[in-house]
């Protein structure tokens, strides 16, 4: 469901989807204090609290913001949060949500249905937001009337007392999980601001929030300290101070006791953390895909040439060499071991002769330079694995040029399209998102042209209500994908949570750290 183009780039920054919760050792023992560092493009310290409407999931979002619902660790099941409950009509097209009463913003004002309605309408007015919400909210009746140039509101959202009624054009089975990631912002603070540029508003320096924590100290470029929000209606959080920093060296900071919590997928960091006895770790099976977008014009226009990539590169050796057990080689959007996996799809297998034969069959043009591209500021591990891929393609007789893009990768990927193979990452809610990419008019369709087959299947998948139906559609999608090979899947990548053994009260099951879910942050304590 979510595009993570930007965060893949950000991932590169030092070992970092490093939401590092840490505590100065002296303080941790006495004050029960922790800190959160957010990843910033450009390096060097914490720049701001990012709008959760662009990406949610950092510790600061967990601690400060609230949605109507709170997701479980699997991100699909939800529990009440700002809302006490919800109900779908029989046809799945009308949703009624009841807001809890008595919840207050950190400035003392009540959280009302107006905040919810204003937030949902405003999402369609900002310039930049996450497609998860846009895609869901575009299914609301009247959404097409709302944009940054007018002041209209969606006719499909009505309120009566504490009840909000949302009318959908068609059923959307991910609507509730999407709402669980959509943070409600205070209308009374933001209504008069420039909504188009909400993500750079001064609000983020000291936001009025409804969650258990609020901003205590904001030392821009350095760190943010969160302190308990005394207007929070739930239990007082046990940790009295959360410091958010950007760690310049996770392992060293962890070793020296300056760091209590972080998550990463950098293989060298994970390897080095093995020797840090004061930390426990939890590897997470998250849907983080790495794959190559193959430009279907040019040398790889023939599907046989694309197929050759499955055999000409020794994926089963490269991926473990770099990522060890963290990386899992995949052949499609549905990995082995996942429900609805189609075992009949042939596995990647290094077979240079077969690759050469396929290339010959495809009358591959060896005279053209194969341009391999990746995001700038990619992780060191990504650069290494892609350099190796480039090397193996050269061994097949191709001329290869591997470079990170300067400038915005999304523009390069979908608008400029000056590449043959481009590395992409996708952190997905569910496998549906992997397939939804094929028929996204803003992205793949620009590269591939209209994809009605994928579009039809994706729309059916979105509305599917039974497991059987879902399975059937996924099988069809997997077959279709193998037929076209527009994406060459490389591997899934586990995220690892590292947490100091001094911290207790943490969840038994961690969720994807790129999303907000119930991680019991109020019951964490440090000793």
């Amino acid at each position, binding site marked *: 469901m979510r595009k993570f183009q930007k965060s893949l780039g950000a991932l590169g920054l*030092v*070992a970092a989807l490093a939401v590092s919760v840490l505590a100065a050792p002296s303080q941790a023992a006495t004050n029960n204090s922790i800190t959160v560092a957010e990843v910033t493009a450009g390096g060097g310290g914490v720049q701001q609290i990012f709008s959760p409407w662009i990406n949610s999931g950092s510790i600061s979002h967990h601690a400060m913001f609230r949605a109507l619902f709170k997701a479980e660790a699997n991100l699909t099941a939800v529990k009440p949060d700002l809302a006490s409950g919800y109900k779908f009509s029989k046809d799945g097209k009308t949703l009624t949500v009841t807001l809890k009463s008595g919840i207050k913003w950190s400035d003392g004002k009540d959280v009302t249905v107006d905040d919810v309605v204003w937030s949902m309408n405003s999402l369609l007015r900002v310039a930049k937001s996450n497609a998860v919400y846009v895609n869901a909210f575009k299914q609301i009746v009247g959404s097409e009337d709302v944009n940054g140039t007018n002041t209209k509101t969606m006719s499909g959202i009505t309120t009566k007392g504490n009840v909000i009624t949302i009318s959908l054009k068609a059923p959307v089975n991910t609507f509730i999980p999407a709402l669980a990631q959509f943070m409600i912002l205070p209308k009374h603070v933001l209504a008069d601001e420039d909504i188009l540029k909400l993500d750079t508003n001064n609000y983020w320096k000291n936001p009025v929030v409804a969650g258990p924590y609020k901003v205590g100290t904001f030392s821009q470029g350095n760190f943010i300290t969160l302190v308990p929000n005394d207007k929070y209606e739930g239990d007082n959080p046990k940790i009295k101070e959360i410091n958010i920093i950007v760690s*310049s*060296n*996770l*392992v*060293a900071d962890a070793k020296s006791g300056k760091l209590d919590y972080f998550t990463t997928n*950098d*293989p*060298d*960091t994970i*390897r*080095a953390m093995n020797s840090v006895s004061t930390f426990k770790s939890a590897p997470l099976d998250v849907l983080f895909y790495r794959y190559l977008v193959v430009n279907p014009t040019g040398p790889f226009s023939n599907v046989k040439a694309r197929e050759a990539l499955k055999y000409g590169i020794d994926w089963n*050796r*490269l991926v*473990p*060499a*770099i990522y060890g057990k963290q990386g899992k080689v995949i052949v499609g959007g549905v990995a082995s071991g996942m429900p609805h996996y189609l075992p009949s799809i042939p596995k990647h297998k290094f077979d240079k002769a077969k690759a050469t034969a396929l290339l010959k069959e495809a009358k591959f043009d060896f005279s053209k330079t194969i341009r391999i591209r990746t995001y*700038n*500021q990619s992780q*060191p*591990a990504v*650069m*290494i694995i*892609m*350099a*190796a891929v*480039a*090397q193996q393609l050269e061994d097949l007789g191709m001329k*290869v*040029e*591997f*470079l*990170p893009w*300067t*400038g915005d990768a999304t523009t390069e990927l979908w608008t400029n399209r000056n590449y043959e193979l481009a590395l992409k990452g996708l952190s997905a809610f569910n496998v549906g998102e992997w397939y939804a990419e094929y028929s996204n008019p803003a992205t793949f369709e620009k590269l591939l042209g209209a994809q009605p087959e994928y579009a039809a299947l994706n729309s059916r998948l979105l509305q599917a209500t039974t497991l059987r139906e879902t399975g059937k559609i996924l099988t069809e999608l997997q077959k279709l994908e193998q037929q076209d090979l527009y994406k060459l899947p490389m591997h899934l990548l586990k995220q690892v949570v590292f947490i100091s053994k001094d911290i207790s009260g943490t969840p038994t099951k961690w969720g994807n750290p790129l999303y907000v879910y119930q991680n019991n942050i109020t019951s964490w304590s440090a000793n």
Partner: protein
Amino acid sequence: MQKKKQDQQSTARIFVRNLLHNPSAVIGLTIISIMILCAVFAVQIAGVEPDYIDPIEGRQGPSWDHLMGTDQLGRDMLSRVLSGGRQSIYVGVIASFLANLIGTVLGATAGYLGGKIDAVVMRVSELVMTFPQLILVLIFVSLLGQGINNVIIVFALTGWMTTFRLVRGEFFSLREEAFVEADRAFGFSKPRIIFRHILPNTMSPIVVAFTINIAIFIIAEAGLSFLGLGVPVTTPTWGNLLTAAQNPVVVDEYWWLWVFPAMSIAIFVLGVNFVGDGLRDVLDPRHKSLIAKNKWKVVLVGRLGRKK
């Protein structure tokens, strides 16, 4: 004509002899020759291709099997460091050559013609010179994009000023000399006077600037590549090997991945600088142990120079 040739030959012979008698030039040339040989025969010396992947041997420290250890993919660092010299030296030499070309042409023109042209070029050179070089390079890279040729072009465009100033200075003093006056009297064309007659007399500073620029560009390539903006990573240059050090874990635990490439740069640049110092001594007697000579002149010869 014949005589001229002989003269040139004997000048060349004297130059080589002097160079070989200059200790710093000899040390420098030795270092450079050894490193170039190592770069050329990298595979033979290391016994393995720089790109050979062997995941089982990955992340190993220096040992008898791998004198400089291995990287994450099990590639032999010795082989990579030695062959990394090829492209680094190539970039340094070609960029320095181009920068010198630009500097020489501009310097000769500005120095000979003087006046407005000179003032404009001088201004530009001042500006480019004071602008922090790395930032200038970064701006150019962001405009031109990455790639080995772009790096060379960028270096040439941002590094011509030293040569320019030296050549311009020489031209200023040479253009009033008798032989140039004679040329003018003969009615030779300006380009002919500039490039055929005066230029050969300014070769010493050009040669010295050439070597110094090589050193500067090799270091600049390392910095640029370290930032991930230099030569494409698929080409193993010393700078590209250093990108490994962007990962703090590598800085901490796999020191051999960045110490050896950096040492190679330092040693090679040291060699180039030694040669540069040596060349300066040999080509320009005025610089030769400036202090001792000057004192001796002041003390003993006094106004001897005026007498002649």
